[in-house]
């Protein structure tokens, strides 16, 4: 096949083709403007530095995670330089696991990671597709493969984030379709590294068990990032940021009340770090609204409309529960 001859019957064969158009196309495909030779050139061309700075600025705490991301970014930048000098043959494996308790910032960091990988040219589009077992695994025979492939296709060019990935593996049911999804994932993670990056996320202990039973998966994950719980001070700073985003603030004394609230809440079950902070603030906003609503004839100042008062927090059931439990 290849080049057509454009031979017209009854005439001599048309001029022989001279060019190899495939070479042109290949050139059109991969054309980095100018090849960077220094770290700062790579950072300037990609603007990945800006994303990392944002990450530092916007996300409270997470010091070890931020350090790991800087390490990974450094590795990618150096790989890029090596590639530009022809020293690197293969794209690095970038699949990752994010472990940690709920609300420790795994999804948020995954979004930033997708952006960084995009800026550095390790994924082409930089979008994040977040899924769970239900999106990948079907209900009957022949259902799983198309479902998993569909998700993989949507994620291509970006990052596939599988939350609570260990649910894919159910050893108690040997005919569970999750295994099929795992196998397809593995195949794509191995063969199409250029096309997408997979991030598996979940609780640390369960993920460890999952990796022990699925050594194939474990060996394809290059980077394990463990997200620590936030310290109370960090949670308070998160609360400040969240309020600021919504144009609220703590009224005098309210911040201290919220700190008390956090101390109590951490000890109670199902504490979910930043997520619990957000939920608590949402409820405080509700209470603030009800409080103001009762005062029907008053003209509120901006001050009043933006202030979360101590009483809005104090009314939480968390305090009552803590009181009945007594000091433990």
């Amino acid at each position, binding site marked *: *096949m*290849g*080049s*057509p*001859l*454009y*031979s*017209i*019957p009854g005439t001599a064969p048309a001029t022989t*083709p001279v060019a190899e*158009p*495939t070479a042109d*196309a*290949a050139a*059109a*495909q991969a054309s980095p403007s100018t090849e960077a030779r220094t770290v700062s050139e790579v950072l300037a061309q990609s603007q990945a530095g800006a994303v990392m700075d944002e990450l530092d600025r916007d996300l409270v705490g997470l010091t070890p995670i931020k350090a790991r991301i800087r390490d990974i970014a450094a590795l990618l930048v150096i790989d890029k330089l090596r590639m530009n000098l022809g020293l690197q043959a293969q794209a690095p494996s970038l699949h990752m696991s994010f472990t940690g308790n709920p609300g420790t910032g795994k999804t948020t960091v995954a979004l930033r990671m997708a952006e960084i990988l995009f800026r550095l040219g390790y994924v*082409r*589009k930089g*979008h994040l597709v977040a899924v769970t077992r239900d999106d990948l695994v079907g209900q009957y025979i022949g259902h799983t493969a*198309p479902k998993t*492939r*569909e998700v*993989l*296709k*949507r994620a*291509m*060019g*970006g990052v596939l984030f599988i939350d609570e990935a260990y649910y894919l593996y159910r050893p108690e049911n040997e005919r569970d379709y999750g295994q099929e999804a795992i196998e397809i994932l593995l195949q794509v993670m191995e063969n*199409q590294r*250029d*096309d*997408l990056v997979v991030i598996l996320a979940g609780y640390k202990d369960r993920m460890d068990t999952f990796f022990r039973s699925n050594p194939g998966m474990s060996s394809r994950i290059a980077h394990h990032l463990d997200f620590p719980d936030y310290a109370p001070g960090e949670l308070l700073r998160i609360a400040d940021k969240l309020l600021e985003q919504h144009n609220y603030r703590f009224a005098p004394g309210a911040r201290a009340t919220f700190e008390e609230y956090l101390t109590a809440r951490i000890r109670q079950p199902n504490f979910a770090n930043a997520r619990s902070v957000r939920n608590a603030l949402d409820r405080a906003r509700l209470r603030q609204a009800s409080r103001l609503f009762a005062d029907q004839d008053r003209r509120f100042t901006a001050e009043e409309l933006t202030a979360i008062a101590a009483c809005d927090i104090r009314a939480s059931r968390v305090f009552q529960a803590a009181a009945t439990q007594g000091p433990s």
Partner: protein
Amino acid sequence: MMTNPVSKITQGQFSFLPELTDAEIALQIEYGLSRGYAWSIEYTDDPHPRNTFWEMFGMPMFDLKDAAGVLTEVRNCRKGFPQHYIRLIAFDGTRGVESIAMSFIVNRPASEPGFGLIRQEAAGRTIRYTVHGYATDRPEGERGIETS
């Protein structure tokens, strides 16, 4: 072999050019995705000009961001049907269009037998024409298998 200037069936957007490489196909897919089209893969062993409904290789692919997903399926389809015609089709769902916006062939059999023209003479020098595909001379299950 067919006798037209490119010795092959000339359906689709790019039949007069050298066969597109996968990298070139990816660029076309990207163009379609950037315009919001949904890609679909179809294959057939009967490329009659009025054979509209080729077999669908899976469902049309909605909500993709990147060409790699489509290209993966093209490769799967080629693996399954190496001696069939395979085409990529882009659907545009915009009101007032709601039809196909792009279509080009991405796989062909090694040899393309082409078509014969059957003439049935009727009254008043009129002729009724039938375009007959040589590929369909063999039973359905046995086409697209390389002979010779």
